[in-house]
C-alpha cells in the first residue's frame, strides 16, 4: 500500500519540481507598474521584512529536507518508514521551489546570488530526477538499475554540496550590505 502512495507521491513531486524548475528558469515575474493593485503581491520583493520572511522560510525548508539524510543513517533515532520520509522530502523540495518563487520573483540576480540560484534550482532538478528514478522502480519492469539510481542520487547530493556556504554567504551579504 505504502509503495503505491510513495510511487504516486514521488512522481507528483518530481513532475511538479521539473515544471517549477522550467518555469523558474524561463520566466520572470515582473514588478508591478502600479500602486493600485487589488493584491499587492509586489510587496514580497519590495519589502525587506517579506524578503526575510520568505528567505528564512526557504532556509527552514532546506534544513528540513536535510533530515532525510539523518533518517537514512540514524534510523534508530527516527520514527516512520524511510519511504514516507522520502515522499515528505519530495514535498518539501517542491514547497521550497514555491517559496523560492516568492523570494526571488524568479530573478536569478548576479554573482553570488546567481550562483546560489543556479545551485538551488539545479539541486531541485537533480532531486526530481532521483525521485523519478525511484518511482520507475515501482512502475516499470525494466527500470533503472540500483547502480544508476545511486548515481543519480549522488549527483543530487553533489550539486547540493556548495549550498551551505552559498546560503550562509547570501545571508551575510544581505546584513553586511
Amino acid at each position, binding site marked *: 500500500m505504502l509503495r503505491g502512495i510513495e510511487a504516486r507521491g514521488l512522481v507528483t513531486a518530481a513532475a511538479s519540481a521539473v515544471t517549477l524548475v522550467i518555469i523558474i528558469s524561463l520566466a520572470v515575474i515582473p*514588478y508591478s*507598474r*502600479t500602486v*493600485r493593485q487589488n493584491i499587492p503581491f509586489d510587496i514580497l*520583493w519590495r519589502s525587506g521584512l517579506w524578503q526575510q520572511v520568505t528567505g528564512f522560510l526557504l532556509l527552514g525548508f532546506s534544513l528540513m529536507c536535510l533530515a532525510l539524510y539523518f533518517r537514512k543513517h540514524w534510523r534508530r533515532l527516527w520514527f516512520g518508514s524511510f519511504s514516507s520520509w522520502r515522499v515528505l522530502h519530495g514535498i518539501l523540495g517542491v514547497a521550497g521551489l514555491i517559496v523560492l518563487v516568492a523570494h526571488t520573483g524568479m*530573478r536569478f540576480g548576479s*554573482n*553570488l546570488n546567481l550562483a546560489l540560484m543556479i545551485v538551488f534550482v539545479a539541486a531541485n532538478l537533480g532531486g526530481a530526477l532521483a525521485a523519478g528514478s525511484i518511482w520507475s522502480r515501482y512502475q516499470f519492469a525494466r527500470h533503472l538499475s540500483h547502480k544508476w539510481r545511486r548515481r543519480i542520487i549522488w549527483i543530487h547530493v553533489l550539486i547540493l554540496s556548495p549550498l551551505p556556504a552559498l546560503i550562509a554567504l547570501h545571508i551575510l551579504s544581505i546584513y553586511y550590505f
Partner: protein
Amino acid sequence: MRTRTSWGLLVFCNLLIGAFFIWRLQTDNQQAFLPGEATHGHHQIELACEACHIPFEGVPQKACLDCHAEELEMANDSHAESVFSDPRNLAELELLNARLCVSCHVEHRPGMVTSMGVTVPDDHCFHCHFDIAEQRPTHTEMDFNTCATAGCHNFHDNRALYEDFLLEHSDEPGVLVTPLVSKRDEPEALGPPLSFGDHDAPADREVDPALLAEWAGTVHARTGVNCSDCHVAEDPKALWDDSPTHKACKSCHENEVSGFLGGKHGMRIASGLSPMSPSLARLSMDPEAMERELGCTSCHDAHKFDTTRAALDSCLGCHADNHSKSYKDSPHFKLWQEEVSGIGVPGSGVSCATCHLPRESHKKGDDKWVLVQHNQNKNLQPNEKMIRGVCMECHGLSFSIDALADPVLIERNFQGQPSRHVESVDMAVQRAIEDLKRKKK
C-alpha cells in the same frame, strides 16, 4: 570511512567557497557580492561599495545626501524631508516613506527601475494625491502614471514647472529677443602676465618649446600662472610633478573641480576608483576613444587649455550617440560656428558645454560670479532641470518645455520644431483666468 571522506570533502568545499568570498570582502573588489547592476546614475561607482554602504548598517540616508544634498537644496525640493515631518502626513508615510531616498531609489534591482533611477511604480503619486481632480478639474481625465510626464511634474525639482513661474513666463516667444548666454568669469590673476621666456620649469627638465608656446598663448600665462603653479607634487619633498592631477587645478578652480568630481566624468575618481573611461560608459561612445581616461586635461589639453575645444571637440571625441552625432547639423552648431568665427556676438553660440556644462551665477560678496558647472547631473535628468538654467537663456518657457518633451527632437539635436505641445502653461493661465472670474463674482 567512505561517509567520513564524503563529509570531509563537503566541509572542505564549503570552507573553500566561504574563504574565497570572505577574502573578496576584505579587498577593494567586492564584485562577487554585487546582486545586480546599478542604475545609470550609479553604475560607474557600483564597485565602490563603501561609497553608499556601511557594513551591517545598510545604506544610511547620509550616504545619499553626501552627494545629492546640495542638488536637492538647489532644486528647492518639492518633497523635502521637512514636508513629511508634519505629523498629519504620518498615514501617507506608512504607504511610502518619502523621507528616505532608498524608499524610491533602490539599487541593484534592474527590473525594478523605471526612469530617473526610480524603483516605485509611476503612479506612486496616487498615495497622497488621489483627490487631485477635485482640486484641479483640468486633471480629471489624467491617469496617475502620467504625473511625471515630461513637462508636467517632477518629484524633486519643479523650479521651472510651478504655477506662478508658468504664469510669469506664459507669453514668451520661442526665441527671446536677446538670446545670449552669460559671459564666464576667470579666477583672479596670480601675478603679472608671463611670456615664453618667463617659464620656471626646472633646469634639469627637457622642456618641449611647442608646449611652452602653447602655454604662453593661454589665459594661464596672461594671469601669471607659471609652470610650477600647476606641476606641484603631492609629495611635499618633491618639487615637480610631470603629470599633475585635478588636485593641482583645484587650487584655482575649486568650483569647477568639485563639479567635475560630482559629475559623470569624475565621480569614479571621487570614489577612489580608476578614472572614468568611455569603455565603462553605457552611452554610445566612439570605438577609437574607448581606452581614454578622464581628467581635467582630457578635455582641456595639458598646456593649451583651449576652452573652445573643450566645449565641443572634446565631447564629440568620445560621445557617439545619435544626439551627439546630430549636433553638427543643428541650428545650435551654426550659431556656435558663427560665434567662433567672429560673425556672431560672444555668447550667441551653443556648444555641447553650453547646455550640459552650463554657466551658473554664484554670489561673490555683492558681485555676480559666472562659473561653468562641471557636474552634468545637476541639469541632466529629468531634463526639465535644464529649462531655467540653460534653455531660458535663449528660449521662451513654453517652447522649452515642448522641446524637452519631444524625444525625437532631442535625438535629432533640436533640428526642427517640437512635434507636440505640453499644456502646462495653458492650464496655469486657464486656472488664473478662472480664479479672476471667481473673485469678480
